């Protein structure tokens, strides 16, 4: 398996750590370096891609899918990457670097809708087209490629509205407080329940799991202590949903509890196949990558693109999981 190859990389890690003996700790986060096939070839269409966090599973999957797509199509596109490592300020610097380089297109995966605005405006001023991928900027002129986070929450609500028993009790594991997509997903969920006329459903508690598995696990363990019975745990992403599942399994409380998440991770599909989760909302990484690629080719040819290219979320449940898994 590929894991053997990764194991070989262990040696590399050792060497890397040893490299610090020279006294200079390398700063692993600043790598506005070009991709392997990057060249200063003036013919190529240069894209500066500011990722939000290379430690985020979904963001990496989408980025990898885009690289694959460009490679597979043999397109004359030079993708260059920067990683903001969850830091909105660093992201502005990354964008400025690309703008100064004079890239042909700036792709932003904003950490924060408001904080990214200066980058969008600088690019606008420099005449460089901007694509916001996955998360919108609060203002400025850009093309949005991605999905509506509100829809993800709404799909969770729609599904549970159908499956929950009467007077069901629900727990909500929220994403990082203060982030727009966290708010959108929660709102979509609550509105969907409301629209379906399920005012009998009670949300027992709503706590911030910070999109982290370990944190979600801990919160769920505490809920298990507090609530002798509940029917569903709704998580704002799959990592948290999987954390909830682990906690429930550990306490033998998984039975009768429907767990739903967002992202469509492979682990979530497995959990659905095993009956541990009921649903995940696929935020379609390859789909978004493909859509972004299509916008790029249009711009490269000098054509115009729609201001909003929506890639719908897809609800994955036991019924259709076979189509997605594997």
């Amino acid at each position: 398996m590929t894991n053997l190859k990764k194991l070989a990389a262990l040696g590399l890690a050792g060497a890397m750590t040893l490299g610090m003996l020279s006294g200079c700790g390398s700063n692993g986060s600043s790598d506005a370096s070009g991709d392997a096939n990057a060249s200063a070839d003036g013919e190529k269409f240069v894209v500066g891609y500011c990722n939000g966090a290379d430690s985020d599973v979904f963001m990496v999957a989408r980025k990898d899918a885009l690289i694959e797509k460009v490679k597979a199509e043999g397109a004359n596109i030079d993708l260059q990457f920067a990683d903001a490592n969850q830091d909105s300020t660093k992201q502005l610097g990354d964008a400025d670097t690309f703008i100064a380089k004079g890239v042909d297109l700036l792709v932003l995966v904003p950490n924060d809708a408001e904080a990214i605005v200066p980058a969008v405006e600088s690019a606008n001023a420099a005449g460089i087209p901007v694509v916001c991928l996955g998360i919108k900027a609060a203002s400025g002129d850009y093309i949005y490629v991605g999905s509506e986070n509100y829809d993800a929450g709404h799909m969770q609500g729609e599904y549970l509205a159908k499956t929950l028993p009467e007077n069901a009790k629900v727990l909500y594991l929220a994403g990082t407080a203060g982030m727009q997509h966290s708010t959108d997903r929660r709102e979509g969920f609550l509105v969907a329940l409301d629209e379906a006329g399920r005012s009998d459903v009670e949300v027992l508690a709503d706590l911030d799991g910070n999109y982290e598995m370990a944190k979600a696990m801990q919160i769920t363990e505490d809920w298990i202590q507090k609530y002798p019975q509940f029917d569903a745990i709704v998580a704002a992403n799959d990592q948290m949903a999987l954390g909830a599942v682990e906690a429930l399994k550990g306490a033998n409380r998984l039975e009768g509890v429907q767990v739903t998440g967002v992202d469509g991770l492979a682990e979530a599909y497995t959990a659905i196949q095993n009956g541990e989760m009921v649903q995940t909302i696929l935020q379609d990484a390859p789909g978004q990558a493909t859509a972004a690629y299509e916008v790029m080719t249009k711009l490269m040819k000098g054509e115009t693109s729609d201001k909003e290219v929506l890639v719908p979320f897809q609800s994955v449940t036991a019924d259709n999981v076979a189509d997605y898994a594997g």
Partner: protein
Amino acid sequence: MEKTKEKFNFGKFYGKYGTFLLLVVIFLAACLFVPDFFGKDNLTNILRQIAVVTILGFGVEFVIILGHINVALGSEIALIGCVSCMVMVAVQGSMGAGMALVVSILSALALGLLIGGINGFVITKFDIPAFIMTLAVTTVARGGALLLTGGKPVSGMDSIYKSIGQGYVGPIPISVIILLILFVICWVILNKTRFGRHLFAVGGNANAAEASGIKSKSVVRKAFLIDGLMAAIAGVLFMSRMGTGQPSAGVSYEFDAITACVVGGTSLAGGSGTITGTLIGAVIVGIINNAQNLLGINAYWQQIVKGLIILVAVIVDVVTKRAAAKAK
């Protein structure tokens, strides 16, 4: 003035038993005001939840007594934990799950010792402040974890791997048993071995320790080795609890561990501190987190409360030490 009669002195009394008093007060308050708090299951739950941070706290305690610090623990457990998962996945097919688990744990311990060894070596060899060195390790270890895993969680370990973090012996979680065993081991090392005595001497006055024939640099290196070993155990426990290797997890766990030490009465200036205090400090923080979750207090307030606890603990520590110093 050395024949001072031992009169009651609050500063001294608090210095000795204050952490424990604080625990009792917080525990009673939680029992009274937090429904569903008191109960065997929830108390076990708290111990299980604090296991990872407490073990990190035990390790960093040795370092803090020396007046050093390690701010890389969160990244270290991510790297070590992910490596242990990858080793497990790689070898479980060929040598069977049980043997693979042993190899996985051994490789984690080896990596922990390597990281601890490098920390101690660089800090003593080049006289670099531990804060700076471990700050560098923070990003290197995190980068290493992401690089090795490609940024994706490692899964596919045999279920035996999960048993460390999730299993039980009778009614007691295995993680709690590991925690208690490490507590005893660390307590003995700190209080009953030559190294422990040397640790306090070097932390209290490195010059006097050197002038007593103690090789202070070697003491520092050993402390970082223990710190690395604890990070390794915590890393395996952390991933096995979640059942996957999470390269981006563990962020800010070092501060939770340091908080446990400080709340437990350890001075960041070095020279003092107890393992019992660290355990109690971790339990206090664990109870407060648990109580806040049970009460459904929102994330903003939880952060504020956590910060205030550290601040109050440090102020109390400083004030009582000053009172004790004045009293002499």
